[in-house]
């Protein structure tokens, strides 16, 4: 018998431009002890389902049609007190960010006890021992001590364990987990998922697990529901769906996942997701502006060379040396990038890889060490004007597509700015034509020029960023986590685009990412960074097949294996 039943669910958000249907015709059920995964891109309506079940739809959103039943009892027509009783008591919820779902001013134990006594008729002593028991159960060492501590004294993974304990306080029958591991590091993610799976089995709790991550789906779910634009496109046992997807959308979603074990030439089948709409325009690079007049001085040897680069941030100022505090963000980093090569930098957050990129781009001045670019020592150049010659040859693509474009400028002006500044085209009309061609070349279409950035999705914005970077006709491109803020499917498109451009224009790239599978798809050689130092530099294939440094081996072990995913249509390089 199923525990939670969702039948024909339709959720509407009335807006001033008409009714927006967030999800429609959703029918799914959860059995005791079963984990049902809901997967899809952002905006597909995954979270709306969870919020509708627990009655947390943000007004004016509401359930317009359909039935939600928990053990045969209708739950979507309850009054306020009914909803409150059901929430927490019968349905638990785990949110994405463990920091904001805990009260920072209350010890963890008090929060647990409060939740327990609210829902269960237990006295203080019994509630305390239950709280202790729960903390032990979710794997928190020394629960007696931890009970008295505040959320900020816990690490991210430990905090998420507390949130799980909190959701299980009242012995709910169903738990809804909305992206429970997205905010965590890969190593902790695996532990949390194991824990959730174990607890569900053991307590016969049914779980809806909402995620965009195919790796999470493959790891823990029994059944999976694939959503696309508010509708279910495919549903079934996880192994079947991931191994032999039937719907074209599921196929493209699976093929868009970067694989840790093979290197693809391009990601296949991403056309289904292409919300950008326009196909890439074809430019004849030989004759077009973009390919012309690349008046770079010829020079032998590596295009970029870093020698003993150091960056020290002052974290506390002081008059005497004893009171000053420093952070060595980058320490003695040396490597060289050959012309035409894609060089990857990989490492956990805080390892200093972005700082290296910023120093190369001239955003930070290194504390010591030298940067040679095309034979010139950039670190020796003082005048801005001298640097501008090299700035034109070197451009950067940033991580966050939502903050990397000036919201007050039209796309035309954003892309035209570098052309105007470096006087690369003759006159207004010529500039305009170059910009339109560039926009078409990155797959946006000419019509994009007159719009403002807020009218575009994250992937489209990243295309605008790429067009702006290409507008100086650079030969060296720095990509600082260019896809980590994007959905997997959009990521595949952007990576394809970068690969195409790199081949067409013969670009040299410094590609920075924390995501090993992405690095494997993109890079020729890779440097592994940890605590501001470079551990290992190796050919990509060598690194992935036989890493020599201990830390590289550790990173590779943590990488999700994704072996159950269909390999249909993938062509290895």
């Amino acid at each position, binding site marked *: 018998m199923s525990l939670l039943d969702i039948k024909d669910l339709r959720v509407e*958000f009335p*807006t*001033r*431009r*008409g009714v*927006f249907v*967030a999800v429609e015709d959703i029918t799914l059920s959860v059995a005791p002890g079963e984990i049902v995964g809901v997967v899809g891109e952002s*905006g597909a309506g995954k979270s709306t389902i969870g919020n509708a079940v627990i009655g947390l739809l943000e007004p004016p959103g509401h359930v317009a049609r359909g039935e939600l039943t928990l053990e045969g009892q209708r739950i979507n027509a309850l009054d306020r007190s009914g909803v409150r009783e059901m929430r927490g008591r019968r349905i638990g919820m785990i949110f994405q960010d463990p920091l904001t779902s805990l009260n920072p001013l209350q010890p963890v134990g008090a929060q647990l006890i409060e939740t327990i006594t609210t829902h269960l008729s237990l006295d203080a002593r019994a509630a305390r021992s239950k709280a202790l028991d729960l903390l032990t159960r979710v794997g928190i060492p020394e629960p007696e001590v931890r009970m008295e501590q505040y959320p900020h004294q816990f690490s991210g993974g430990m905090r998420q364990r507390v949130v799980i304990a909190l959701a299980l306080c009242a012995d709910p029958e169903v738990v809804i987990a909305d992206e429970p591991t997205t905010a965590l590091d890969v190593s902790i993610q695996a532990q949390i998922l194991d824990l959730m799976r174990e607890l569900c089995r053991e307590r016969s709790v049914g779980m809806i697990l909402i995620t965009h991550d195919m790796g999470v789906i493959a790891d823990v779910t029994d059944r999976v529901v694939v959503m696309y634009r508010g509708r279910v496109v495919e549903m079934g046992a996880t192994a079947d769906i991931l191994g032999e997807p039937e719907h074209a959308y599921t196929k493209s979603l699976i093929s868009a996942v970067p694989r840790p074990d093979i290197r693809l030439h391009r990601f296949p089948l991403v056309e289904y997701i292409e919300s950008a709409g326009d196909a890439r325009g074809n430019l004849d690079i030989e004759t077009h502006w973009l390919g012309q007049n690349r008046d770079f001085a010829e020079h032998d040897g590596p295009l970029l060379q870093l020698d003993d680069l150091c960056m020290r941030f002052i974290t506390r100022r002081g008059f005497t040396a004893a009171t000053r505090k420093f952070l060595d963000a980058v320490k003695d980093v040396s490597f060289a990038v050959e012309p035409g090569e894609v060089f990857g930098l990989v490492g956990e957050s805080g390892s200093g890889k972005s700082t290296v990129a*910023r120093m190369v*781009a*001239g*955003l930070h001045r290194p504390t010591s060490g030298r940067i040679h670019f095309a034979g010139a020592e950039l670190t020796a150049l003082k005048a*801005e004007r001298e*640097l*501008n010659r090299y*700035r*034109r040859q*070197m*451009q*950067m693509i*940033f*991580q*966050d597509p939502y*903050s*990397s*474009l*000036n*919201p*007050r*400028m039209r796309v035309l002006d954003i892309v035209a*700015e*570098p052309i105007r*500044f*470096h006087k690369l085209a003759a006159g207004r009309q010529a500039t305009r034509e170059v910009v339109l061609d560039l926009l078409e070349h990155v797959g946006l279409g000419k*019509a994009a020029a*007159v*719009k*403002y950035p807020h*009218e575009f999705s994250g992937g489209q914005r990243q295309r605008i*960023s790429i067009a*702006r970077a290409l507008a*100086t006709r650079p030969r060296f491109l720095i990509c600082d986590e260019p896809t980590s803020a994007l959905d997997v499917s959009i990521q595949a498109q952007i990576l394809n685009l970068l690969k195409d451009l790199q081949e067409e224009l013969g670009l040299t790239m410094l590609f920075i990412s924390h995501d090993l599978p992405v690095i494997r798809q993109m890079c020729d050689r890779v440097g592994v960074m940890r605590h501001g130092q470079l551990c290992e530099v190796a050919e990509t294939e060598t690194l992935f097949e036989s890493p020599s440094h201990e830390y590289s081996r550790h990173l590779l072990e943590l990488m999700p294996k994704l072996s159950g995913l269909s390999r249909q249509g993938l062509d290895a390089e």
Partner: protein
Amino acid sequence: MSVPSSDSETQTWWQRIADSDVFYSFTHSPLALAAAAVTVVFVLAALCAPLIAPFDPFDPSQISLWDGKKPPAWEADGDPAYLLGTDNQGRDMLSTILYGGRISLAVGFASVALGMVLGVGLGVISGYLGGWFDAVIMRLADVQLTIPGILTAILINGILRSVLPPELRDELAIYVVILAIGLSDWPQFARVARGATLVEAQREYVQAARVIGLGPVTIMLRHILPNVMRPVLVLATIGLALAVIAEATLSFLGQGVPPTTPSLGTLIRVGNEYLFSGLWWITLFPALALVILVLAVNLLGDWLRDALNPKLR
């Protein structure tokens, strides 16, 4: 979850405004509409004062002491020619209020503009450059903020007046007041602009501009300035109301514009002397005009602050 907006290619700037969320919220807020209507009426009345006022209070040939101290028209011995009565010199109250509002609003707009240009300029430069410039400017602002704005204005006003030759004092009085209020106003703008600049300067579009090679002046003008104007606009609206009050206060204290070209504050001060002689209308009507104007502008500012705050939507 965004609802696709209509195609922006064919939109003119006016359609773009009419289509925006802020405009929508404006047309759906009765309070904002009423406040805007009152403000517009006041501004229009002030602009058109020479056309609509029944008398010219600055023309001595139209003034007769015989007509002085007349109560409003509806009172027992009121004269229908003087709707709101006359003051001690025989000037028509309605006309003087219209002309007075003109001066009050002019001083308000001009001093806010001065404070805004000065404050936003210094604030953006401080926020973007940082270092010693930032430290000096912001400590200066802190010091000025420890003194109430009106005291600063009186101080600046007093110094400027004593510097000016006596024969120019009345002529230049209005500019002195504008300067005094504008200079007492800038720290607010500087702080808000600096705070917004600190946030914007961290954003990646500013870094992208640096990678392109743009210099600090271009980055501040083209990239940062347009993006810090939202909170500044809110502050300016509320600042307008405060500046009108500041002008009235200065004039009430006899430090503002002279009685020969009266502002609302001057009228209130003049009327105040006759309040206990039963001539209530000389003070009440200018005071009412001032209260309604300031209230309307303030409500407009409050609404603007809420409408532009994404967290409250």
